[in-house]
């Protein structure tokens, strides 16, 4: 009875609140790591190592909500939240969010929204990273050497996203399910009855 295209209110609101919560997480991340981030900005391939952190919602939301478009919606919304809060890139932030979300979404769409295992989420994280970093390269680093900078940057970002978002998001779902807050989602039903 639960079509992957039919969103319940709780699906919409949890996806949206997750996006807002990650807006707060990223804001806090910037407070803690601003200095490190800023200096890494001068050498893009290094910065790409922590790239996956930004893509956690793109993998986390589909794993929890299990509806078509959950990754795209949540990542795009998280980007809109940071844009409204004063992200330096303005509207371009939303474009990035859409690109990232689209990449992450593809893996789940390829499994017809029936596969939510580890392999799918790792591929989802990798694709989100691939899409997002390619977008960055076109936008911000178009003149850099293809093999010496652009390829390593995209490769690091993809790997980082596969690990941090692709492995981190399922771990997060497991821990969240143990608290009982996911009881109204399929992802929360796996745990033992309490």
């Amino acid at each position, binding site marked *: 009875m639960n079509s992957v295209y039919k*969103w*319940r*209110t*709780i699906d*919409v*609101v*949890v*996806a*949206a*609140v*997750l*996006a*807002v*919560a990650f*807006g*707060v*997480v990223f*804001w*806090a*991340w910037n407070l*803690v790591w601003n200095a490190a981030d*800023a200096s890494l*900005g*001068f*050498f*893009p391939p290094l910065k790409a190592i922590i790239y996956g952190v930004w893509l956690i919602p793109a993998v986390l939301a589909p794993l929890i909500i299990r509806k078509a478009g959950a990754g795209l*919606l949540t990542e795009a*919304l998280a980007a*809109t*939240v940071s*844009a*409204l*809060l*004063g992200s*330096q*890139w*303005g*509207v*371009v*932030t939303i474009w990035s969010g859409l690109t990232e979300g689209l990449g992450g979404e593809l893996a789940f769409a390829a499994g017809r929204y029936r596969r939510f295992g580890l392999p799918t989420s790792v591929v989802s994280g990798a694709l989100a990273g691939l899409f997002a970093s390619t977008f960055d390269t076109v*936008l*911000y*680093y*178009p*003149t*850099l*050497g293809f093999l*010496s*900078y652009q390829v390593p940057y995209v490769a690091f970002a993809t790997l980082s996203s596969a690990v941090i978002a692709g492995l981190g998001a399922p771990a*997060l779902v497991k*821990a*969240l399910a143990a*608290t009982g*807050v*996911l009881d*109204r989602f399929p992802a929360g039903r796996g745990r033992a009855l309490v």
Partner: protein
Amino acid sequence: MLTPAAVAAPSAIIVRANPLAKLAAASLIAGLALSSTDWALGLTLLVIEAALLPLTGVRVGRFLWRIRYLAFAAFTVGVVNTVFATGGGGTVWFDAGPLHVTSSDVDNGLALALRVGAMAIPGVLALATTDPTDLADALIQQLRVSPRFAIGALAAFRMLPLLAGEWRLIAMARRARGVDAGWNPVRRLRLFASTMFALLVGAIRRATRLATAMDARGFDSGVPRTHARIRRMRGGDWVLLAATAVACLAVYVAVVVSR
């Protein structure tokens, strides 16, 4: 705190414009900025943007403060593209191993920095002067976005200051428990992850309750929703769009095509 800061008075022209008109205009300009890596285009756009800024009703000082990170990011992009660029011709200014700076590299870096600024500023301006409620109204009524998603997102956005305050409290509660990280980056990461986890648990709990409360008031009734407030694209909004399109075309012809 974490709330959208006002960069204009509520009565300013730009605040009253339809959010979609503003975002579309900003996207047009950003698209134009992206069309070329020539520094003349970025510079021209930046000059025009600066000249038009006072006409929008924006408080210039606050706006400059708002874009301070953008300025730094644009600078970073400029430096990176100068220092790490390969195969640039022109006079060699600096050469040490992989670092190789030529006059054409500097040209390139400058152009890209200007491009980033020219591209982002209209979007930052549009968003900084948009109330989320107005944006949701416009998305539903003009773009026919599903109200379930637009209103759901708007309701979630209301939680932003609440969750930001929550983050501070959770962080303090960890200190009270005797957990801190000092300067150890690994422990810092773990502490960050644990704070994030507690935030997400609370956020999902709240979202679940909010969804129930929304359904209790008929959000999932399936009845076609009506609008308490009708919002239209007004004459001024079309003028804004048309003027932006004409200006973009003119700049494109004058700067890009003519060279």
